[in-house]
């Protein structure tokens, strides 16, 4: 599969959006879906639908196998040691809530500290916040530097003997900074502290190797990985999944149920209560295959070309201010224009079919730090081209014209 004409694999680009070609620069929010994924959902519902794991009839058996095949594919894709280290959730947010809730229940007590960073998405802050109230713990924030990065040193500075778990983003959804996760994990482990990685932005764009990263938990969002909505993945080391209590209760996750008590099922069932997002999990296998077919190296190289071009283009455009300058950057570029509010930018760009996001991107802590309530953000997916960046730039120029800049 040739990445240079990969747009063709995504049907959304076949249609005009309000008479414009779609210039989709909002992939950090959610990625578009390739035809293979869309078809898989369609076919599964049309010809093969059944619930999984609960009946012994033909369709149920087939669906169960398909469902478990995705688990194996994900395991391989992220190089997890064990298939049962892959838990399907409804999204990355749920994956992080699962960890915060169960780890918190078992291991966090009054006065303990959870260390996160100023870059974190609300999804990797609010779940820990709940424990402030219920468990009287504290939350510490590793500082972001002027370039929009969180360094190993910045993490190290905040670790102390009350630190019980560290939660960090792999790739910031605002500054684009890629964190030195492996080094942070190694430091944390040397002090006996487990690490949760919010991999929402990392998973679609970086080569993943759980055994190499050695993190304890890694949260993934299916819809940002060119997959269906309504599915996420929690990777967790087996020892944690065996050790921690269950999260939600219901059918499928139990072993034996009596009036007096309940015993819980083995992995992977323990954390998959109730009917799961069967069709979405099954179709997500196609997302993985799609990414594998292109090859993660090709994706990284391609996206680097585009993001470098975007940075260069926007830097040359005066009145555009890039809000971060990380040395190791993924495909996220946030910017402001003096005297034009990001929401006004987004509205004007949209008129030309250029879809970006404006706001705090669920990172209010970071925006407080940056001293701006909102930024405009262009984020890149596998389908973006230099032409997309040119269109972005010319629409920005139109903004400036409208605002008499």
């Amino acid at each position, binding site marked *: 599969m040739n990445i240079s004409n990969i747009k063709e694999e995504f049907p959304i680009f076949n249609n005009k959006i309000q008479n414009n070609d779609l210039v989709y620069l909002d992939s950090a929010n959610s990625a578009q879906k390739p035809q293979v994924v869309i078809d898989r959902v369609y076919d599964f519902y049309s010809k093969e639908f059944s619930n999984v794991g609960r009946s012994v009839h033909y369709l149920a058996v087939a669906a169960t196998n398909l469902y478990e095949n995705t688990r194996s594919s994900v395991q391989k894709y992220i190089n997890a040691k064990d298939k049962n280290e892959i838990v399907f959730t409804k999204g990355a947010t749920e994956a992080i809530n699962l960890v915060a809730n169960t780890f918190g229940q078992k291991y966090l007590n009054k006065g303990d500290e959870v260390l996160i960073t100023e870059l974190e998405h609300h999804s990797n802050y609010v779940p820990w*916040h709940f424990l*402030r*109230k219920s468990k009287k713990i504290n939350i510490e924030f590793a500082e972001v530097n002027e370039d929009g990065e969180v360094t190993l040193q910045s993490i190290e500075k905040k670790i102390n003997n009350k630190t019980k778990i560290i939660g960090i983003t792999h790739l910031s959804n605002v500054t684009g900074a890629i964190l030195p996760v492996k080094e942070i994990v190694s430091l944390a482990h040397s002090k006996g502290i487990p690490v949760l990685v919010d991999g929402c932005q990392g998973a679609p764009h970086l080569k993943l190797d759980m055994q190499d990263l050695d993190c304890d938990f890694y949260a993934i969002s299916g819809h940002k990985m060119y997959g269906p909505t309504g599915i996420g993945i929690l990777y967790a080391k087996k020892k944690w999944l065996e050790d921690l209590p269950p999260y939600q209760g219901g059918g499928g996750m139990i072993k034996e149920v009596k009036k007096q008590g309940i015993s819980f099922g083995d992995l992977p069932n323990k954390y998959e209560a109730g009917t799961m997002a069967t069709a979405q999990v099954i179709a997500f296998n196609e997302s993985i295959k799609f990414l594998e077919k292109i090859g993660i190296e090709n994706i990284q190289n391609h996206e680097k070309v585009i993001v470098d071009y975007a940075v260069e283009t926007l830097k040359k455009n005066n009145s555009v201010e890039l809000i971060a300058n990380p040395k190791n950057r993924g495909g996220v570029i946030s910017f402001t224009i003096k*005297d*034009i*509010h*990001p*929401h*006004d930018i987004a*509205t*004007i760009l949209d*008129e030309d079919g250029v879809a970006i996001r*404006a*706001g*705090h991107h669920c990172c*209010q802590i970071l*925006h407080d730090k940056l001293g701006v*309530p*909102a930024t405009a953000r262009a984020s890149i997916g596998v389908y973006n081209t230099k032409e997309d960046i040119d269109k972005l730039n010319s629409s920005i120029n139109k903004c400036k014209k*409208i*605002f*008499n800049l």
Partner: protein
Amino acid sequence: MNTKELYQQIILDHGKNPRNLRKTENFNKDAKGYNPLCGDKVHIYLKLNENKKVEDISFEGQGCAISMASASIMTDLIKGKEEFEVKEIVNDFLDMIKEKDKLNNNILGEDDKTKLMCLSGIKQYPMRVKCATLSWHTLTSAINNFKEEINTEDN
């Protein structure tokens, strides 16, 4: 309607140089408004005199051109009005933004109405309607004394 028309000169002007962007001394009514989606914030201050007339109105806040212009134009028009008139103008404006073609109140003069109608284009940008209405809702809160402070404490 295109964005060139939406962002007409008067909006840009009020957006960039908002009138009444300050804090009324000795205000006796106020309220804060917040739009969590985009981070727009506004704080409205009112001084009603003993006859329930708006002696002064001002605001503090930050936001997009639409929300700043809306607050700016609003405060300009409201100054000097009676409390009951303020309520009528607010309702009329909100109705207009929601569904009506024009303003129906008999309180504002034609010039003022024309100024306000500059904001009507926002109807075609549903995600931005809140930008235009935030300060108006907040004014209502202030008048009714709903001091809905944003609670940033644990809850």
